[in-house]
């Protein structure tokens, strides 16, 4: 724990990369003591994962009250729910972070309580429709700055969410 050669090497490498002005105050140890903040890719992926978790939870909540809905409205929920679960699984499979780092600690803290969704069919479907539209737009916004493979996944998921809107719209008409 005392003098770690690996750490010294890291410090040397870091010092070599710093501009001269930053070298005057020797804060290397202090800086290395805290885990580095998550890089922007990871933050963006965490945002996408949180958004999909929320959509999955919203459908789960809606499904609990769908027993009393007209069948035409209730039956659209399960397949859309499944697609969000597939989105979430794909996104989560792209997130690999070392345990104990700042990146692994931050999300999902508030995933415990179920999200509020209206219980009546027409109101719930309208709510989900707006949520899908917003989710598709937000996912589209992640496309421009992400690494290529992740950008393609975001674009595909955004497109999938966009297709949920007309499905819900039809269901909403059935729920009248």
């Amino acid at each position: 724990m005392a003098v770690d050669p690996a750490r010294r090497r890291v410090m040397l490498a870091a010092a070599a990369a710093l501009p001269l002005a930053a070298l005057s105050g020797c804060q290397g140890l202090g800086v290395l003591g805290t885990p580095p903040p998550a890089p922007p890719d990871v933050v963006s992926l965490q945002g996408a994962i949180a958004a999909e978790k929320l959509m999955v939870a919203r459908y789960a909540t809606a499904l609990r009250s769908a027993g009393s809905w007209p069948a035409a409205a209730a039956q659209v929920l399960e397949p859309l729910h499944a697609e969000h679960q597939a989105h979430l699984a794909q996104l989560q499979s792209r997130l690999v972070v070392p345990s104990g780092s700042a990146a692994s600690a931050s999300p999902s803290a508030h995933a415990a309580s179920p999200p509020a969704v209206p219980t009546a069919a027409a109101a719930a479907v309208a709510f989900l429709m707006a949520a899908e539209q917003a989710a598709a737009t937000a996912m589209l916004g992640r496309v421009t700055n992400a690494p290529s493979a992740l950008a393609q996944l975001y674009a595909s998921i955004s497109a999938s969410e966009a297709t949920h809107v007309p499905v819900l719209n039809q269901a909403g008409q059935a729920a009248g």
Partner: protein
Amino acid sequence: MSRANQAGSQLSGSGAAAQDGTTRALQSALAAEQEAVYGYGVVGAYLSGAGQSTADADWLAHQNASNTIQALLRQRGTRPSAAAVAYELPIPVQTPAQAVSLAVIIEDRIASTYLGLVALDSPAIRKFGALQVQASALRAAAWRGSTVAFPGLPTAAAAPRRGGHSS
């Protein structure tokens, strides 16, 4: 379908490498759109009523996208490849049901092609590509009568956890 564009493929020099990739991706998106325009001509010919109206609207959407890509290529100083006179259809079409299947195949291919643009460096082209994936997925879902979890991605990457909702 794969007519190499002479002006595009003859770009050379070290600085042209990245641009060349973008140009090639735009040319292949253009080729896919030109094939889609041709394909929707066939789709519309076998449908009537609402189906034909949808085919006409989708034909126009692909024509517009084709025009947009041609403009993007010209902005890059590249001559857009010309469309072929005719294309070999991926499936034989002799019935309305086959026409609908063709429309679905066209849109799935278009969505994949535009996902290729999403992998490029230019934020503007990425956004254009992503919006086109959305538009294509919406058309595909309308023809298919159901949605998919990962429009444009290969099905292996998009393995569903549970069944889709085609009845």
